Every structure is written in structure tokens, then in C-alpha cells.
């Protein structure tokens, strides 16, 4: 399904949901969800309209790459790039299942081809390159495809002199690609160094959860680093650390707020204010060399592959 169809489909589904009145138990469960944090029972449609943020306790639910893009980019402005890049199985990796089977499973579960979507768009009128990771696909893990797509969108931002926004959500490197996945840390970081030398703005947005190889590369290299409230972000996982140091960690350990307090990120911004904040930041950096060339951006969305 291409992105346009997806956006259209969703609109239809919403309308259908609104039209219905009498519900089966199954339908009831699909319509209601209990907040992970405050346990409040929330109507899924309300939750969606509130950008998947609990209206009561402001818990930010995970959202997928497509929702991210819809939320951040101006309507109809997103043009996907590198949509056909898909994983191969270089190591013929097999644990309890083969990597190939796991890839199929990830695709069926999420409807996505990989753990990231990249493209160009406008954000409140500002042309930009945008990448969004999806934790729903293979735990947002970074293998060759994620690394390559990140690298290519960085290179595009460089070529077109467009600010770059990457929204991260990842469990880390994809073990099934072994050392090749480790090397994606090097590849993406090296690409960002070139972007840096071109003085192009790169805003990194960290969302629940962002760990491992992704934080140890592009996610922590933003000129500006923004995190969503409550998002857990770190290098090593909490459980591994607790096993290692044999003591309980503080409750707020590795939360966005903890990172802010410990000087690791620039700001914690609630989801609703993210587009405006990013637009303001782009504006505040749009001097001389950082001025995007208007012709760099197609005025109408490209055909999505």
C-alpha cells in the first residue's frame, strides 16, 4: 500500500468508526484502551485525535513512522525516498527462526518494508528532509537498510541544502546482520560529519524508546536534540545495567527528563508542540549558507514508490 492510500484508508476507517453505534466485545476492545501510565480508559479515537497522548496524564504512546510523518509534515507535502530498499540476509542468520522469516513477520505485523521511512516534505512551509523510525517493525532495529536509508537521506539533505529531521525509535543494532549492523553506526556518523561540514541543520528527535546503536550514532549527533516527554533513551538497557551493577536504578533513569537534567539533550517537547518547535528552529537557523534553495523541493508530492 502506498502512503497516499494509507492516509486515505485511515480517514475512511475513522469515519466508519464514528458511524457505528452498537459494539461487540471485540469492537469494544478495539475502541477503548487503558492508559499505560495512569490506567485511565481512553476512547481510541480521542486518543488518536490527541496524537496518541493521554489527555489525563500526558503519557505519550508510541506512534508509528506513518503517523509521525502525517503529524509533522504539511498535508500532501511528503515525498518518500528509497522506498524499495529492503533487507537481504547476508549471514543466513538463524536463531530460533530464520532472519528471512522474521523479516516477513515484521512486515506482516507493521505493514512496513523496513524500520524507517525517509523523504522530503515541508514543515509549516519550511522544506526539509525527514526520516521517521518505526519501533513496530523489528523493534526499530538498525540493519543495513536502516543505515543505508539514513545515510542516503543525509546525503540528500547535503546535496539539496535542506535541514534534516530524524525521529528515532529503536532497540539498537539488528543482531541478525551481525557486524554489518555495527558498521551502520560508522556509516551514518561519517555521513553526518559531511553534513556538519556543510553547515546544514540536523534536528534529532528521540522518542520512546531509543537505545543502543542508534543512540551511539546518529540519534545523539543532532545539532539540536529534542526528546518527547517520558521517552526512555540510553545506550545500555535498564535491565542489563541493573544486572551489572546489582542495584536498582532510580525511577526516572534514562527518561527524557533525566537526560535533560543531565545535559544530554536540548529540550523535552510535548508531541503537540513538535511541529511548531521544529519550524521555529529551522527559521532561527535559516541564515546565508543555511538558506534552502526553493527549487530543491518539488511543489507537488512525488509518486510514492
Amino acid at each position, binding site marked *: 500500500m502506498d502512503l497516499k492510500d494509507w492516509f486515505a484508508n485511515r480517514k475512511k476507517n475513522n469515519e466508519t468508526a464514528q458511524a457505528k453505534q452498537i459494539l461487540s466485545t471485540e469492537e469494544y476492545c478495539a475502541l477503548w484502551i487503558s492508559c499505560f501510565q495512569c490506567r485511565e480508559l481512553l476512547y481510541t479515537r480521542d486518543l488518536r485525535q490527541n496524537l496518541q497522548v493521554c489527555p489525563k496524564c500526558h503519557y505519550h504512546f508510541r506512534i508509528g513512522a506513518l503517523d509521525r510523518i502525517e503529524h509533522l509534515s504539511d498535508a500532501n507535502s511528503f515525498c518518500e525516498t528509497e522506498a524499495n530498499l529492503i533487507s537481504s540476509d547476508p549471514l543466513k*542468520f538463524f536463531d530460533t527462526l530464520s532472519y528471512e522469516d522474521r523479516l516477513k513477520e515484521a512486515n506482516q505485523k507493521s505493514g512496513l518494508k523496513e524500520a524507517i521511512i525517509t523523504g522530503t516534505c515541508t514543515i509549516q512551509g519550511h522544506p526539509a528532509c525527514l526520516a521517521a523510525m518505526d519501533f513496530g517493525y523489528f523493534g526499530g532495529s538498525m540493519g543495513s537498510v536502516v543505515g*543505508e536509508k539514513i545515510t542516503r537521506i543525509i546525503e540528500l539533505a547535503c546535496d539539496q541544502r535542506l535541514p534534516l529531521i530524524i525521529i528515532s525509535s529503536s532497540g539498537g543494532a539488528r543482531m541478525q546482520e*551481525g*557486524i554489518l549492523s*555495527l*558498521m551502520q553506526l560508522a556509516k551514518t556518523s561519517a555521513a553526518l560529519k559531511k553534513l556538519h561540514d556543510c553547515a546544514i541543520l540536523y534536528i534529532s528527535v528521540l522518542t520512546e524508546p531509543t537505545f543502543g546503536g542508534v*543512540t551511539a550514532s546518529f540519534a545523539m*549527533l543532532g545539532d539540536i536534540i529534542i526528546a518527547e516527554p517520558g521517552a526512555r533513551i540510553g545506550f*545500555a538497557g535498564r535491565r542489563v545495567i541493573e544486572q551489572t551493577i546489582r542495584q536498582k536504578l532510580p525511577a526516572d533513569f534514562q527518561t527524557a527528563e533525566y537526560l535533560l537534567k543531565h545535559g544530554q539533550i536540548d529540550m523535552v517537547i510535548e508531541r503537540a508542540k513538535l511541529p511548531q518547535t521544529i519550524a521555529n528552529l529551522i527559521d532561527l537557523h535559516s541564515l546565508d549558507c543555511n538558506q534552502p534553495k526553493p527549487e530543491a523541493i518539488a511543489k507537488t508530492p512525488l509518486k510514492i514508490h
Partner: protein
Amino acid sequence: MTTGKLPPLEFELPLANLNTQIEALERQLPSNPALEQEILELHKQYDNLKRSIYGNLRAIDRLAIARHPQRPYTRDYLDRFDPNWIELHGDRHGVDDPAMVCGLLKLGNYRVLIVGTQKGRNIREKQLCNFGMPQPEGYRKALRCFKHAEKFNLPIITLIDTPGAYPGMAAEEHNQAQAIAYNLFELANLKVPIISVILGEGGSGGALAIGLTNTILMLENSVYSVISPEGCASILWRSPTKVQEACESMKITAQENKDLGIIDDIIEEPLGGAHHNWNLIAKTTQNYIIKYLDKLNIENDIVEHRTRKFRKIGCFKD
């Protein structure tokens, strides 16, 4: 015999047993000359077994050699490369991480900076060096020294022997992820040739933090992997006993890393492993480094050479 006074590794047990048998017979030989033929036979058997065992090491066997408690560490190489090497200390911001060793020295005709992770030999050293797992400040100390080398046009050699970055609370608080990421970012653009040698364990981001280099060499029995085999087993197989499977699946050996195009060359170790002859492996390693420094010296654009190398790594369908 092969392992000297060291206790044998698991896969060396048949050899050790045969050796015990031979020694017992040899003690009886003076009083029973008829044993001579049997002893000769056993020696032949021993040599065959040795060739067969060391010629067919599994990944998990190499992992054991890479982690051998008597394997030479970074400081052992530095002492042998140049006994007058001068150590640089500290990140300048409050911490000197002993798990990251930085030194200036002469290597053949080259003046170089060497930066390497350091495991400790005895208990106290191990604790000081955190078993070869640097703190964020260690990676930052390395970067400070990289910048120093770049300023003075000194080639950089990194020696890698680390289980990985340390999963600790302070390490997270001090932004370990950023420390690694920022090293990658800066290493990508250093204007001097950089060579890394994986001496033992090349563990994950902790190894890569000093491993984004022009030329990557691995000692014959060293390993390089995205996660420790134990970590991989416990996550993917949900079983700590599946380490061997994890070792095989992840392709962690020098040869596999070479086949995957990740590393450039393999440095042969003394039979049975580097711990059998520290001087020899130091000499061999030095020769390899100098050979590759000579090669890099004729590269036109050392930064382009390095970034191109990593730009190409990845396997996908387009």
C-alpha cells in the same frame, strides 16, 4: 607442552591429556626402554592432534583464546614497540580512564600515536581498567589524543581489546552513547592515516568507538561482533547455553570478518595463540602496522579513503 604452565582451554583438553600420558611414559622410560616405540607413536599422534585441533578451531574456541587471561594486552604491545613510549593521560575534564591507554612513540621510522583499550592483568588492574570496558571519559580521552595526533600529523594506531562499553549507571549519566557517536563523527574526518588492530575482543560500540579507521587488522584468534555472544544468546535464543550457536551465527572470527569485507587483513598468531609468545606477536603486529602505514602513505585523500570504506558497507536489495 603447547600451553606451557597455563591451564589448557576446553578444546585443548585432549592435547593436554595426551601430553600427560606422554610425560608419564617418559618418566618410566629409563627403567623400561621398551616404551620408546610407544612414546614415539604418541608424539606423532600428539603432533597430528595439535594440527587438527588448531587447524579446526571453532568460533567459540577462538573466543576462548581471544579472552585468554595470559593474552598480551595493549600495554604489553606498547612496551615492545618502543620501550621509551610516553603516555598521555586524561580527558582534561576531571577523569583519567585507565581502560583507555594513549601513548606517543616511535614505530620503526614512524612517529605515531597509539590509543588502545586495556584489560587488567591482576585483580587490582582489572578493577581499575574495568575489565577493559572504558567509561565515556575514556572515549573522550581517546578523542583528545586523536586531535593531538591530527594537529601534529602523526598517524594513529588503535589497539582494540574490549568486551564493549560499560553498562553502568555513571556511564549512562555521562552520556556514553554520545561519547561513542561523537568519536565516530570525528574519526570520520581526521586528516591522518589511522589503522586499528583488534588484539582480542572487538566488542560492539565500545570497540567501534576507536575502530572507524582506514585499515582494520585482526589477530588470527581475535573476534569482532555487534554484541557479545553471551548477549546474543540470551536475547535471541533466550538461553545462556547457546553461546556456541551465537558465535557461529554472528560470524565473529577474523576470517569471517575478512570474508564480509569488514577488515583488511589477518595477523597470524603463534600456534595455539598470541599468549604463547608475546614478543613474537608484538613483532609480527608491528610489521603489519608498518606495512599498512606504508600503503596508506601513498593514498591521495586519506579521509576519502576512510569514509568510502564505511560508506560501502551494508547488504540490501535496491
